[in-house]
Structure formats: structure tokens, C-alpha cells
């Protein structure tokens, strides 16, 4: 199946501890480029991603390239070809950088793509024997993204990869994601609208555990009124809501 979205989420519902976190999320991830998943804090973005991966109990439909995955365990879903960089980066602090990457290796036709990872992040090569817990936030994010690039994935999911990083590092991370997205579609959860504006072609906006809007990213970000209503980004042009300039 080569038409339609790469990832099609329909009526995704998540119930945790007797509380409905998601009430029916619909989400399409395009076959090319970056699809941004937006919404205010607590809208359900991270839970949607975790639901897609089966890290939380969920119902509904999650199709990857037409294949239904909603009843599969997480490790099987991931092996279908998903690279996941979680919100907290999911770094193993007690393992070295090299061990963190080695853990992510999966058996594939081409073997792990260390060449690409070390080309994008030469820092990781230099620090491969360092314990990941002693890395800076930006370096840990490099490990997290590096893991997603190691295997020939069909989809990369990055959950707030620029959160808490210094502006210069945010630009670096954005550049890497931009380059990764040339080869692999990316689902990007992001609060930094400058990054979204620079990278995303498509977007979906969540509000209170439901999909409130789906469409081209430029359209949403160009419409200050709708963006303010859906994202709560305050007054003035949307681009200035962020501290980071998209520099290309």
C-alpha cells in the first residue's frame, strides 16, 4: 500500500487509572517530511505518541502503512520500523553512549547506520565511552535522535526534542531533524513554533484529548487567530512566541 498516510490513527482512546486521557484522536502522518503534533500542555500529545507505540493501554485503530498495530505489543510495533525519541529522552544514564546506541541496534538488511549517526553527531563518537548520565541535555538528545537513525526506520517519532535546550542546540537539533526528514517521515511533537514553522509541512492540533484541527502547517501558523485559539500562544505574530529564530 503506497497511497494514503504512512501512519493513520483513528479514534485512539486511552484510559489510565480510570481516567480518560484521550477521547478519540485522529491523526495522519504523511509519507514525506515532518508532521507536527501540536496542542497546549496536557492536550494529550505525549499520550497519543505513547498510545501509538502501545506504551499505554489503548483502543481504536493505529495503522502503519495499512497494517493494524493496535493489538500488538510495543516491541513488535517498534520492529515494524519506528524510531522513537521520547519526551524525557529515555537515555540509560548508567550505560555509556556506545552502549545506549548498541542497545537500539536491530537486525536489518543494512546493519546499523553508525556512519550516518557519527556524521550528524561527531560529538557522540568522541564521547562513546562516557556514561550517558553525565552528558548535557543537548548531548543526551543527540543520543536519543541518534538511536532513531541507527536502523532503517519507516517513521521517526520525536516527542519535544528541543525542550529545555539552549537556543543554539535547538537550531542544531532542528537541522538534524530536517535532514532526517529528507529520508524518513517524522512525527514531531513540538511546542517551539519556530521549529514547527521551519520543519513541518503538515500538522494536527489536539485539545482536551481530541483532534481539534488537521491540515497544512503553514496555513495554521499563518492564521494568527486560529493558532491563538488552538495553541494559546498569546498575542502578536505566532513566530515571535518562540525565542528561537529559524535561520535558514
Amino acid at each position, binding site marked *: 500500500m503506497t497511497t494514503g498516510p504512512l501512519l493513520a490513527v483513528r479514534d485512539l482512546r486511552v484510559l489510565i487509572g480510570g481516567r480518560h486521557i484521550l477521547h478519540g484522536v485522529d491523526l495522519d502522518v504523511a509519507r514525506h517530511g515532518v508532521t507536527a503534533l501540536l496542542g497546549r500542555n496536557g492536550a494529550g500529545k505525549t499520550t497519543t505518541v505513547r498510545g501509538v*507505540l502501545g*506504551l499505554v493501554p489503548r483502543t481504536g485503530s493505529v495503522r502503519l502503512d495499512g497494517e493494524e498495530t493496535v493489538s500488538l*505489543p*510495543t*516491541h513488535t510495533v*517498534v*520492529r515494524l520500523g519506528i524510531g*522513537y525519541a*521520547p519526551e524525557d529522552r*529515555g537515555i*540509560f*544514564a*548508567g*550505560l555509556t553512549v556506545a*552502549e545506549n546506541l*548498541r*542497545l*537500539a541496534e*536491530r537486525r536489518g538488511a543494512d546493519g546499523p547506520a553508525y556512519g550516518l549517526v557519527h556524521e550528524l553527531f561527531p560529538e557522540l563518537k568522541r564521547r562513546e565511552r562516557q556514561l550517558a548520565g553525565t552528558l548535557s541535555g543537548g548531548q543526551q538528545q543527540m543520543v536519543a535522535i541518534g*538511536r532513531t537513525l541507527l*536502523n532503517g526506520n519507516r517513521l521517526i517519532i520525536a516527542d519535544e526534542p528541543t525542550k529545555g535546550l539552549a537556543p543554539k542546540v535547538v537550531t542544531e537539533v532542528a537541522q538534524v531533524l530536517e535532514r532526517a526528514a529528507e529520508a524518513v517521515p517524522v512525527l514531531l511533537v513540538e511546542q517551539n513554533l519556530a521549529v514547527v514553522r521551519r520543519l513541518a509541512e503538515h500538522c494536527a492540533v489536539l485539545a482536551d484529548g481530541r483532534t481539534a484541527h488537521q491540515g497544512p502547517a503553514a496555513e495554521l501558523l499563518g492564521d494568527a487567530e486560529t493558532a491563538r485559539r488552538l495553541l494559546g500562544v498569546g498575542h502578536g505574530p505566532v513566530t515571535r512566541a518562540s525565542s528561537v529564530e529559524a535561520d535558514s
Partner: protein
Amino acid sequence: MSTVVLLTMTGLGLGALYFLIASGLSLIFGLMDVLNFAHGALLSIGAYGTWWAASGHLPGAGPGGAGFVLAVLFGTAVGTAAAVLLELAVVRPLYTRPREQVLATVGVGLAVPALLSGIWGSDARTFPGPKALSGTFGLFGAQVPVNRLVLVAAALVVLVALRLFLGRTRHGLVVRAGVEDRAMVTALGIDVRKAFTLVFAIGGCVAALGGALGGLYFGSVDPRQGTSLLIFAFVVVVTGGMGSVSGAAVASVVIGLVQQFANYYTAAGLGDLAVVVLLAALLLVRPRGLTGRLA
């Protein structure tokens, strides 16, 4: 002087025995958050398996030489198989229900000694062992039983093997990562449940070996041996830090020595109390044990 040497060697032997139980217990808890109250039962199964084989029931096995080695291998293999069965049949179906899981392991921990009593009686049985291991050797004026050395040597081999496994193999890497963040390991496409079974097998194997060699140390086997040792193994695990093999090794030595010396120099029985007091004091200062880390 000779008393101190003897107490030290006996304490180290006891510590080695604690380590054989606690290392598996610690890995199981660290990786899976399972408090395996049936771990003492695995030790008992190893002890009875070895005793049964060495008593002439297994062709080729016996109380001496290669026959005894075969008996120990048999006991260890039975204990390993029991551990795998325990994980697959009792622990695995209850991963989403931790309370029931603890109760189930407590149940197995009670049922196995009862089963052993039912088959072979509740009295202690003399443990057959090679003559070479039942003697003593002179060390700084003390006559130290050889079996102490056997236990210490076995514990050292196990410690080195576990560290190599954890540090050098892919499965070891998965276990170390799983101790830190199990969910993230699955999110990298790894079936962490396979690691669970493996860790149970390793823990069962080492505990069963402890049972086999514990028979030498105590000179007998009885159905309650495993359960009473388990309590001190838990003290070792908490003292050493959950999930840490090296922490368990250090804590085993400390606990074994403190217990022996306190029992000798104060009143018998106070050694057991001293160990618990030591644990309480340590937890007040370092709530995560001697080490919060693995390996």
C-alpha cells in the same frame, strides 16, 4: 587469633552462600520489580536435587569425586528448570497485578518446603559429600573447614561470570538497561520478557548452586533451609542496593561477617539481630543501599 581466623572464614563462607541467593534475587527485583519470595524454594530444590542424586539415585552420581560434581550439576539444572517454570507459569501471568504476584511467590515459597517435607520428611537429612571437602586445613593456627573455601570460590566464580555477562553480552546490556527503564527497552524494539525469563533462569541456577554447596556447609539438608536463608538474602539485597550485583557481593561479605562475629562475641542469636540493626542504620543514612547502581 585462631578464633578470629575461623570466624572470618566461616563468615566469608556464609557470606558466599548469601551472595549466591542474593545476586539472583537482586537482579530479578532490579529488572522486573518482582519480590521473589520463592527464591529460597529454588535453593531448597537445588539442595534436594543434589542430595537425591548424590545419595545414589542418579546413575553416575555419588558422594565423591566426579560423581559429586555430576550431582551438583544435576541439582543446579533442576533448580534452573524450576526457576524457568516459575517465571513462565506463575510470575508472567501476573505482571500487571504486582500484589497477586507477590502472594503467588509467597505461596510457592511455602508450598515447595511442604512438598519436600511430604516426600522426604521434615527432619534434616545428612548431606553426602566428598571426603576431600569435609576435612579442615590449617590457616594461622586455626583449623578451617574446606567447604568454606569451596563456597567462597564458587561465589567468586559466579561474581566474575555475572559481571562478564552483564558487561560484555547483548543480553547483559538489555538486563542493565531494563533495570534502569524497562518501558524504554521495549520502545527500542526489544522483547524484555525474554530477558525476564533469562534472569529468572540465572537467578535460579545460582540459588540452586548455593543450595548444593550449602548442603556441604551445613552438612545436611532440610526443607526450611532455603526459606530461612532467604530472609538474610533480602537483607543483603536491600543493603547492597536493588539490582546491583557488586553491591550484593559487598553486602554479603559484611552481613556474613557481622553475623558470625556478633553471634560469637555476644549471645547466640544476637548476630541475626545485629544484621537487621545494621540494615536499619544503613537505610537511615543511605536509603538506596550501598550502591544505587547495577554491576
